[in-house]
């Protein structure tokens, strides 16, 4: 038995490029699976960060959802400040704050970008910061009376990320929607694309720029206790149905809990992963057929060798095992290469994501997956080798030696 393994390895070594090319299918399949799993977990963590999982007691209410206008119409019935006041009066609710988000031209260093600007209400500024879990890393946060002033997300400090080629710091002035605003604070980095790239100003200032009146984009609600989230969600839905006069199941607004949002995104990610894994499996199957092919060819090429071995005492089981082990090793080589490339691609991918959106997802290499892949790729190769190996045992020694 000892000799087989070294013998198989020797046989593998003398394989030409043609022999190795057949490993492409297995290689690609395994690269995809490994890269995806490495990336996929990273993705989920990044998505989690985007939704600020820390504030699990926060519910958001937005207008929209099912559309009952005539086909093609996108008119939505907006929320307003009174909705927020009504929600705040519910017994399960600690407070409700309103938020408007406008995309406005922001000018600095003679460069123009579009930036998301978030409103902060003078009366509920502290509650706003609480639901978004915000703190300043330099300067301070906005408070009542801070008209003409803004605070900016951490990416504004980075000249490579803010689009201005120069860092924006406390004391600098930005032209937003044509008006001048003084930066009085920079937010701590959140790992959330939205907040790290946001500008915040007083509601009164934003209303002056955008003119939304009493309408609000989002009502963020803090629930009295963690275990009350589901109950609060139901209360809000009931209240809003009454206020907007819609039936259950026909809501023109969406009440979302962070868990539900996360679940939704995760389920989309999962189905994408499943789809790609199916493609990868097809690639692996194609690769396995490739192995069947090369092994069958090498049985023919090594006909004489098989004959010699039988002449000097090889039983059929010896010949069978010899080819099976070699075929398994072939698969294993594809697996090892696939793992190396897959982990590399996944790691680079996460590194890119971290760079791009300023998240700091840890790179986690799944060693169990790697072990399973190693064993699996050997088995795929071995299974692919069964039929050719059986063919090898059928070789008659006399005929092989004549040839």
């Amino acid at each position, binding site marked *: 038995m*000892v000799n087989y393994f070294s013998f198989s390895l020797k046989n593998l070594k*003398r394989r030409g490029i043609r022999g190795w090319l057949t490993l492409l299918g297995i290689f690609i399949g395994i690269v995809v699976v490994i890269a995806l799993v490495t990336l996929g977990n990273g993705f989920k963590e990044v998505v989690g960060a985007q939704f600020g999982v820390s504030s699990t007691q926060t519910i958001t209410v937005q207008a929209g959802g099912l559309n009952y206008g005539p086909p093609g119409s996108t008119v939505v019935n907006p929320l307003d400040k009174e909705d927020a006041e009504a929600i705040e009066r519910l017994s399960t609710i600690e407070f409700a704050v309103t938020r408007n988000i406008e995309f406005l031209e922001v000018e600095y260093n003679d460069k123009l970008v579009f930036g998301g600007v978030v409103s902060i209400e003078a009366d509920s500024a502290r509650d706003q910061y609480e639901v978004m879990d915000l703190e300043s890393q330099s300067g301070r946060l906005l408070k009542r009376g801070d008209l003409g002033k803004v605070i900016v997300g951490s990416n504004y400090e980075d000249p490579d990320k803010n689009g201005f080629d120069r860092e924006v710091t406390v004391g600098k002035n930005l032209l937003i929607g044509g008006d001048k605003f003084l930066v009085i604070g920079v937010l701590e980095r959140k790992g959330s694309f939205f907040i790290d790239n946001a500008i915040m100003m007083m509601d009164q200032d934003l209303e002056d720029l955008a003119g939304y009146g009493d309408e609000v984009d989002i009502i963020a609600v803090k629930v009295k206790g963690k275990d009350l989230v589901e109950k609060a969600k139901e209360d809000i839905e009931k209240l809003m149905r009454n206020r907007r006069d819609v039936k259950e199941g026909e809501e023109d607004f969406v009440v979302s809990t962070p868990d539900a949002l996360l679940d939704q995104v995760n389920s989309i990610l999962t189905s994408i992963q499943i789809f790609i894994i199916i493609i990868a499996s097809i690639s692996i199957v194609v690769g396995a057929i490739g192995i069947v092919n090369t092994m069958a060819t090498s049985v023919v090429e090594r006909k004489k060798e098989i004959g*010699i*071995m039988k002449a000097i*005492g090889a*039983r*059929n089981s010896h010949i069978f095992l010899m080819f099976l082990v070699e075929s398994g090793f072939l698969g294993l080589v594809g697996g090892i290469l696939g793992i190396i490339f897959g982990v590399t691609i996944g790691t680079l991918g996460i590194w890119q994501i971290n760079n791009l959106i300023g998240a700091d997802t840890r790179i986690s290499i799944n060693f169990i997956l790697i072990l399973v892949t190693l064993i699996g790729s050997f088995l795929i190769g071995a299974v692919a080798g069964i039929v050719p190996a059986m063919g090898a045992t059928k070789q008659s020694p*006399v005929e092989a030696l004549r040839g």
Partner: protein
Amino acid sequence: MKNEVIIHLKDVAKFYRIGEKNMVKAVDGIDLKIKKGDFVAIMGPSGSGKSTSMNLIGSLDVPTKGSIYLDGKDISHLSESDLAELRGKKIGFIFQQFNLIPNLTVRENVMLPMDFQGIPIWEMKQVAEKILKKIGLGDRMDFYPNQLSGGQQQRVAIARSLANDPEVILADEPTGNLDSKTGETVMGFLEELHAEGKTVIMVTHDPDLAKEHARTVYWLKDGKIEKITKKRVK
């Protein structure tokens, strides 16, 4: 020389069907008894059935008709794998084309027949090295076959045939691919093995070679034994 029969072919025939009607009678009813410790040559013109009878004697092939006994045991009906194991243990083959495994070293080539018998690796190594030294290839053990001359390759093949210390050595035209001088060295080794008590059976179409070395010569023609000549032992 003992009088014990080691190989007995009883009315053995091997026919090959060519197409629908034609039949080639490669071996057509051979009876022979080879005694333990004999040096036998099988002679005859090309196509007379020498290689075919050799394959039958060495249990590489099964007869169309008749029975073959090895050490008194009928082996005509053994399974392919059991035959392989038996010949691995009892018979050592030497071929005209050397037939070494190209991507195994000299040492590994000699170890291979022992591997098939399940001998532990340290023992295989020891035995292989001992035989190779004896045959004068102690300094070539890590070479690959294509790094050796024809004569050296044939010596490796002889070493390999001895790996499991078989009772019978079968050599099909062992000098056919060698110049006469190297051929003589190889014949010298076969003589030595014979002197050690092994049964040597050699196929050749060179009458001088047969006459010089063999004690018993079977002359084949058209798949039949034409005559048997024996050399008196002094």
